[in-house]
């Protein structure tokens, strides 16, 4: 601008000089004091010219339109794109075979490689202004070829099995209609529980137990979530949340869970006398060459309709420096329970214990002591997911003065009752139709209870403390494991879980060894004298203890994670000498009652996102215990590595 004005001034100078000459002429004509004027030529006249020039310049300045000011640009929100992920590899080896079931229904997890999994995780988050979209997917190469026929050999999908897990695919709007209102739609996790790994109030997402080393992981699910924080600046931790899950998703159980169906002695209903009778009948049928197996399991998931939409609400707050929340959930438990059994004789199973495997043909007759069956009583079980309402309570903070962090998570469950219907085809002397539950000679009667409608509570009370900045201790009392459901614990001893069942007796043709006759037990109502069961509360108690030892400035981590079963086991049976049924309690740390998980691992972080780890998962206890159960998967050792970016 200044340059422009200076240029104009320079251009105007000759014109001004010319005008000055003309002015001189005019003044000469009518001015008598020429000499005096000449004497005064110089500074005064120049001053006049300069004044004139300056006024002209000012006029010009005024006439010049000021250049338009550049319009202030409103800063536009920029798209922020965040891409990350992880490549990991995990190899596990089972160190000891675990097996369940008799020879005609044997299920085994052999010694050998149990997992050979490579995962490419990709996470993309795009954000602009108040809006955000997130996708997180795992591409999982399982490593075990699955082809077992000729077409399979030309199917890449069977030779290199690949699956995709979607852990997140949602859109999120912050302060949507007004400040403090957040909305999130899509595949997501809602983690309200403050407990570590064990969360009785995390009910909106189904559990994911596929990987036994990830205790308590949950599956993302499609849902709509609204969080309202009325005073986001003054009370940012006061939040009201509402969630709707349109479609129910069941829990993902571990592959070893399939072994559980061979445990036909774990009768699931509450009525003990009916259990004793069925134990006796099963044993009688077995002795008669028709043992019971579970031939098929059907799953009845809740129908997709408005009535089955899962709903939840929560209010969270910070009061007196403690974080607390109350919540309500209406929906379903994500672990199924039996709803219906149908049993029929299947003679295609006829076999002897030492028969050679197909296609070899047996040469010769069975040995004298060799066990043979004429077939099986094959049961088709239908499972369903019980409806439940849950009041949740979460509290976390620290105990003042000692810096001990605590977390309390409590769920009070109000289940709908589930009864099981038992039907059968003609089996030995049992007529086809519905089972005669009350033994009155007529089919039917009051159906046995699988889940009673009595309320029950599951909780986690945990404490954590750090010593010297390198050792972190975590201890938790867990009441009710993730798959335990229904009333029955030390508070209300009304429900038991059968861990093992049998009927001890002989057939009339057998030598009298002092045991009762199975015919009396199975047919004449004296089942109490034969039946024997190993029981534990439906909701058991566990001590979870973990220790992290960080060393080499957090590059190294030694972790020991343990779970001890504290409930013990009760063996119920008939004492012939006493002439009554008796209970024998096996304490938690006794030979028969001990059950624990010991999970040590070591991890080394090389920096830049590269880590290697190794460890072992030991599941200890007799086969009737919760962790010694073959269906828990047995003990494995592992190595893993990952690179995160």
């Amino acid at each position, binding site marked *: 601008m200044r340059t422009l004005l200076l240029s104009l001034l320079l251009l105007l100078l000759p014109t001004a000089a010319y005008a000055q000459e003309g002015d001189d002429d005019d003044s000469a004509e009518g001015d008598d004091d020429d000499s005096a004027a000449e004497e005064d030529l110089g500074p005064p006249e120049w001053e006049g010219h300069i004044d004139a020039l300056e006024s002209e310049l000012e006029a010009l300045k005024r006439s010049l339109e000021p250049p338009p000011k550049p319009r202030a640009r409103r800063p536009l929100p920029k798209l922020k794109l965040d891409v*990350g*992920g*992880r490549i990991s590899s995990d190899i596990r080896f089972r160190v000891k075979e675990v097996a369940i079931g008799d020879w005609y229904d044997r299920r085994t997890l052999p010694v050998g490689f149990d997992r050979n999994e490579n995962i490419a995780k990709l996470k993309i988050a795009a954000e602009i202004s108040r809006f*955000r979209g997130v996708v997180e997917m795992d591409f999982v190469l399982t490593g075990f070829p699955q082809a077992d026929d000729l077409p399979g050999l030309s199917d890449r999908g069977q030779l290199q099995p690949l699956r995709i897990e979607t852990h997140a695919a949602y859109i*999120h709007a*912050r302060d949507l209609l007004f*400040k*403090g209102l*957040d909305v999130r739609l899509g595949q997501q*996790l809602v*983690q309200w529980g*403050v407990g570590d790994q064990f969360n009785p109030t995390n009910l909106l997402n189904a559990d994911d137990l596929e990987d036994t080393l990830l205790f308590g992981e949950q599956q993302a699910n499609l849902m709509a979530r609204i*969080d309202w*924080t009325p005073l*986001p*600046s*003054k009370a*940012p*931790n006061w*939040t009201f949340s509402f969630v709707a899950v349109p479609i129910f998703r069941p829990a993902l159980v571990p592959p070893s869970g399939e072994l559980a169906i061979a445990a036909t002695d774990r009768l699931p209903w509450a009525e003990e006398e009916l259990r004793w009778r069925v134990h006796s009948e099963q044993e009688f049928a077995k002795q008669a060459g028709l043992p019971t197996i579970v031939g098929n399991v059907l799953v009845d998931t809740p129908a997709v309709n408005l009535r089955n939409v899962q709903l939840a609400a929560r209010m*969270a707050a*910070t009061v007196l*420096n403690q*974080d607390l929340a109350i919540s309500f959930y209406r929906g379903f438990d994500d672990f199924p329970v039996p709803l219906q059994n149908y049993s029929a004789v299947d003679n295609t199973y006829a076999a002897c214990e030492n028969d050679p495997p197909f296609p070899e043909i047996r040469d010769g007759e069975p040995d004298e002591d060799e066990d043979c069956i004429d077939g099986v009583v094959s049961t088709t079980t239908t499972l369903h997911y019980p409806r439940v309402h849950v009041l949740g309570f979460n509290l*976390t*903070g*620290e105990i003042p003065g*000692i*810096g*001990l*962090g605590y*977390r309390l998570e409590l769920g009070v469950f109000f289940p709908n009752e589930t009864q099981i219907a038992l039907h059968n085809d003609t089996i030995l002397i049992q007529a086809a139709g519905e089972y005669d539950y009350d033994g009155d000679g007529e089919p039917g009667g009051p159906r046995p209870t699988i889940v009673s409608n009595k309320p029950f509570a599951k909780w986690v009370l945990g404490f*954590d*403390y*750090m010593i*010297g*900045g*390198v050792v*972190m201790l975590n201890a938790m009392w867990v009441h009710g494991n993730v798959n335990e459901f229904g009333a029955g614990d030390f508070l209300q001893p009304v429900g038991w879980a059968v861990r093992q069942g049998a009927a001890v007796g002989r057939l009339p043709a057998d030598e009298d060894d002092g045991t009762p006759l199975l015919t009396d037990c199975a047919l004449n109502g004296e089942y109490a004298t034969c039946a024997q069961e190993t029981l534990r509360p439906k909701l058991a108690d566990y001590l979870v203890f973990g220790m992290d030892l*960080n060393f080499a*400035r*957090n*590059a190294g981590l030694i972790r020991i994670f343990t779970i001890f079963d504290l409930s013990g086991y009760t063996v119920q049976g008939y004492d012939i000498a006493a002439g009554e049924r008796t209970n024998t309690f096996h304490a938690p740390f006794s030979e028969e009652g001990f059950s624990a998980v010991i999970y040590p691992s070591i991890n080394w*972080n090389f*920096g*830049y*996102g590269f*880590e290697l780890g190794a460890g072992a998962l030991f599941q200890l206890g007799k086969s009737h215990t919760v962790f010694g159960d073959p269906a828990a998967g047995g003990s494995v050792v592992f190595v893993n590595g*990952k*690179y*995160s*970016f």
Partner: protein
Amino acid sequence: MRTFGLLVALLLIPTFAAADDGPSVLAKMDESMSRAVDQYFEYEVVNEEKGRDPKVMELDVWIKGPMRLTEFQAPGDMKGTKALVRAHDQMYIYLPAYNKVRRVASSMTSGGFMGTTFSNDDISTVLYGPVYEGSLQSETDTAWVLVLTPKADAKTAYGKLVMTVSKKYIQPDTIEYFNRKDQHVKTETRSGYTCEGDVCNAESMKMVDHTRGDASTELVRRTWKVNTGVGDDEFSVRNLQN
């Protein structure tokens, strides 16, 4: 008479200058460190230990009053991890692998902050006055030396801090950390102060841990913004999960 008055005034000047006691210097320092309504930093964090390759992390930090929000950007295994300090005894951590916000107890604050030589306690101490009593140990033309001891009701991992406070910036140049047994365990050096208006901040903060063979962590400031207008609601559990 005027000459006499001037003489008295001159005699009094050193007296007034020396009147800077520990509490007042501490108060001035806290005031200097809290002049900004809020601040935003991007740091490169370099961990060094003898015999090992240095490890580098990147993190973003928002500070407003006593509140601090830290988000890791690198390396990949820590990316997305967030730590929120709402008060000295109210801390949260968000671990993206678990998709969960976890309250952190104050006993954890003695531990290293994400593998650095800075402890959670060091990171969470935004102002010193609310936690420590200050006494003036010595003074030079350029600095005060303060001895800070924890207040009776304060929870802190240290038994004593010896702090050299720059008179130019009224902020710490060095902080020597002593444990409860009066052992010198760490030394923090803050250097390269620059100012935005009357708000000054060190370009480098280096913590040397003498208990771990003088392993060190240096936070090198890459970006610094003052008074960005960030709202209080950003320092919330709600924001950690977003």
